[in-house]
C-alpha cells in the first residue's frame, strides 16, 4: 500500500514536468534515427579519378571494369601527376588510378602490365576495403585476359577457381544491422539513469527527504516506490526504440521476442538501478547529472562494443569494458536479432545483467539505510 502511494506521488511529480518527460520519450527516437542512418562504414560509390597515359582500347577496357562495378564512381579525368596529388589532397577523390603509357604494349607482349593505384588511407578501414576492391577487380580482369590468351592458343579448358561466399547473420553486410541492436543499449542509458537519480537527489536538495527519513517507510520500499514509475517509463522507451528499429530500420529479429523482452526488462532495471546508485553517492543535482552522463553514458558509447569492436582493444581495456552493463546488453541484443540463437547462448550475459541490477539495488539500499540511521 505504501508502495503504491509512493509511486502515485512520484507520478504526480513527473506529470508536473511534461517537458522532461516528452524529451525522455522523443530524444531516444531522434537519436536512433540520427545514428541509425549516420553511423555507417559501408563502402559504396568510392570516388575514383583516372590518369590514363595510355589511352588505348586495353586501358579503356580495364577502366570499364571499375565503372561498371557499383563500388566506384568515376569523378574526374586527370592530365598530370600533379593533378592526381591535388585530387587526393583536397579529398576530391579517394582513389586515383594511374595507367602508364606502356600499359597496352606490355599486355600485348606478355610482360606484366603494371598500373599504379593511389589510395587515400587517412581513414584506415576505408583505405583497406578500397584497396581490396581494387585488387579484386584487377585480378578478375587479369584472369579474363589470361584465359582469352590461352583460348586463342587452343587451350580449351584451363583450370578455373570459383569462390562461393556466404555471409551469415548479416547477409547484405549493412552497418545498420550491426549498429541498431547495439544502439538500443546505449540509448537506454541516456535518460533513465539520470531521471531516476534526479528524482531522489531533488528531494535531498530540497530537504524533503528528511520527512522520509523520519517516517516508518523502509529504505527498500522507498527506493522501489521511487523507481517504479521510472522503470515503467524506461520500459516504454525501450519498446518504442525496439519498434522503430525493427519496423523502420528493418533489422531482422531472428531470435525469440519473449527472450528479447525479458532481457530488455532486466536491462531497464539496471539502467534505473544506476540512477538510484548515483543518487546515493551525490548530494547535488548537478553532480547527479554529471555523474550519470560523464561516468556512464560517455564510456558506454565508446566501450560497450556498440561501435568499436571490443575484440581489438588491448587486454586491459577489454577487462574495463566489463564495468559497463551496456556491453552485456549489446551482446544479447545482437545475438537475438542477428544470430537468432536461444537462451543457451545468451544466458551468461543475461545472468550478469541480473547480478548487476541486484548489486546496484542492494548497495543503494544499504547506503540509504546508513544515512537514515
Amino acid at each position, binding site marked *: 500500500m505504501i508502495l503504491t502511494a509512493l509511486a502515485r506521488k512520484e507520478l504526480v511529480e513527473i506529470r508536473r514536468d511534461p517537458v522532461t518527460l516528452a524529451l525522455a520519450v522523443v530524444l531516444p527516437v531522434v*537519436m536512433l534515427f540520427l545514428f541509425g542512418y549516420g553511423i555507417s562504414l559501408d563502402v559504396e560509390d568510392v570516388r575514383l579519378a583516372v590518369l590514363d597515359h595510355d589511352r588505348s582500347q586495353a586501358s579503356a577496357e580495364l577502366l570499364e571494369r571499375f565503372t561498371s562495378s557499383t563500388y566506384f564512381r568515376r569523378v574526374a579525368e586527370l592530365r598530370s601527376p600533379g593533378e592526381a596529388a591535388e585530387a587526393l589532397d583536397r579529398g576530391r577523390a579517394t582513389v586515383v588510378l594511374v595507367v602508364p603509357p606502356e600499359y597496352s604494349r606490355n599486355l600485348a607482349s606478355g610482360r606484366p602490365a603494371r598500373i599504379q593505384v593511389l589510395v587515400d588511407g587517412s*581513414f584506415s578501414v576505408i583505405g583497406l576495403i578500397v584497396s581490396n576492391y581494387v585488387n579484386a577487380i584487377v585480378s578478375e580482369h587479369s584472369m579474363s585476359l589470361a584465359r582469352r590468351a590461352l583460348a586463342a592458343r587452343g*587451350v580449351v579448358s584451363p583450370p578455373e577457381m570459383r569462390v562461393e561466399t556466404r555471409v551469415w547473420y548479416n547477409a547484405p553486410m549493412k552497418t545498420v544491422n550491426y549498429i541498431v541492436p547495439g544502439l538500443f543499449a546505449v540509448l537506454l542509458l541516456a535518460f533513465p539513469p539520470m531521471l531516476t537519480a534526479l528524482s531522489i537527489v531533488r528531494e535531498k536538495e530540497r530537504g524533503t527527504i528528511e520527512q522520509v527519513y523520519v517516517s516508518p517507510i523502509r529504505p527498500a520500499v522507498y527506493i522501489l516506490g521511487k523507481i517504479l514509475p521510472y522503470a515503467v517509463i524506461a520500459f516504454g522507451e525501450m519498446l518504442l526504440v525496439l519498434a522503430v528499429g525493427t519496423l523502420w530500420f528493418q533489422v531482422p529479429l531472428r531470435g525469440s521476442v519473449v527472450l528479447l523482452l525479458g532481457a530488455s526488462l532486466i536491462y531497464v532495471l539496471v539502467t534505473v538501478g544506476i540512477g538510484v546508485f548515483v543518487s546515493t553517492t551525490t548530494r547535488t543535482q548537478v553532480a547527479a547529472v554529471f555523474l550519470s552522463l560523464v561516468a556512464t553514458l560517455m564510456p558506454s558509447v565508446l566501450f560497450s562494443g556498440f561501435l568499436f569492436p571490443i575484440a581489438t582493444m588491448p587486454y586491459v581495456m577489454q577487462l574495463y569494458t566489463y564495468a559497463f552493463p551496456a556491453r552485456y546488453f549489446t551482446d544479447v541484443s545482437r545475438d537475438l536479432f542477428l544470430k537468432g540463437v536461444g537462451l543457451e547462448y545468451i544466458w551468461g550475459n543475461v545472468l550478469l545483467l541480473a547480478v548487476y541490477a541486484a548489486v546496484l539495488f542492494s548497495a543503494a539500499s544499504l547506503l540509504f539505510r546508513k544515512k537514515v540511521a
Partner: protein
Amino acid sequence: MQRLAAAIRKEFLQFWRDRMLVALVVFIYTADVVICTVALTFDVKNLTVAVFDQDRTQLSARLVERFSATDYFGRLVPVERFGEIDLLLDRGEVDLALVIPPDFARHAASGAPAEVQVLLAGLNSNTANAARGYVNVILGRFAHELLAQAAAARGISTDLPEVVPEIRIWYNPQLEFKHFMAVSMIVVASLTVGVITTAASLVRERETGTIEQLAVTPLRVDEIILAKALPPFAICMISLVPSLLIGMGFGVPAQGALELFVLASVLSLAGSMGIGVFIAGFAESLQQALLIGFFVIFPLMFLSGTTVPIDSMPRVMQVLSLVSPTRYYMEIALGTLLKGVGWSALWPQLLGLTAIGGAMAFAGWARLARGGALIGRA
C-alpha cells in the same frame, strides 16, 4: 583598459578556483586522447579462421598455407565437420570459415571449376567486408598461379598477360586507425570543452546571483563577455600543445601548415563557445545546461566525420553536415596533421569554418550583448 584587465584577472582567478573544471579540461585534452587512441580501432587484423579441408591434397594444403602467411589472418582452427563451423561461428570464436571440398585438386587438374566455400560471420559488417576482401585477394592470386601453371604444363610459358596493381596508400601507409583517432580526439575535445565550459560558467554565475553585480559595474557588456571567454579559451589553446605532442607520439606526422591548424582551432573554439552561450541562454539551471550540451555535442561529434567518414553517410546527412563547424575543423586537422597539406588545398574548408564558426560566435556574442543570456531568461 585597466578596467578590462581587472575583469580579466578576476575571471582567470574564478576559473582557476574551479579545479574540477580545469582538471576535466586537461583530462579531455590529454588522458582521454591517449585512452581512446590506444583502445578504439576499426582495424581488422588477426582474424581467426576455421579451416575445413575435405580434400587433404598438396594443392589444398598450399591454399591453406596462403591464409597463414598473412597478418590479416591469425589463428587457423582445423575442423572436421560442418557442425563444428556452425558452433564456432555462433559462439563468435572464429570470424570466418574456409571450406575446401573433396574434389578440389581433381577439378583443378581436369579443368573443371574448382570451388571453395567461404563463410563469413557478418555480425560486424566492417570486419566481414575487410575479411571478404582479404580472402578474394588471396584466392585471386592463387587462381592466377594455377592458370600460369597449367599453361606452363602445356608448353605455353612466360607470355601470359597479367595486370599487376601497385597499390600505394597515401597519408597513412601502414593503414593504422590510431593516427586518425588521435586527430579526431583533439577535434572532439575542442568541441566538448568549448561548449561545456562556456555554458557552465555562464549559468553558474547566474545561479549564484553574482551576475547582477557584474552587470552593475562600469564594465561594458562586451568587456564582460571578453573577460568571461578568455580563461576557457586560453586553457584550451594551451592544452593543444600536449595534445599535439601526444598525437605525434602516436605517429601523427603533423607536417602540414601548422599555422593553419592553429587558426582553425581558434575559429572552431570560438564557434563552440558560441554554441555554449546559446545553451546558457536556454537553460534554467546548470543541470539543464549540461543536459542540452550533451545532446548537442553527441550528434555533432558523430555526424561531422570524427568517428565515421562523411562519405559513408546517406546523402541527406552529408548535406546536413555542411552546417557543422566541426566538419570543417576535422577536415583541416586531418589535412594539416595527417595528410601534410596546406592553405592551397584547405582554403575552402577554412572559408566554411570562418563563415559558420564566426556566425555562431557572433550570434552568441549578440545574444549576450543584449543581456538576455547574461542576466537570465526573465
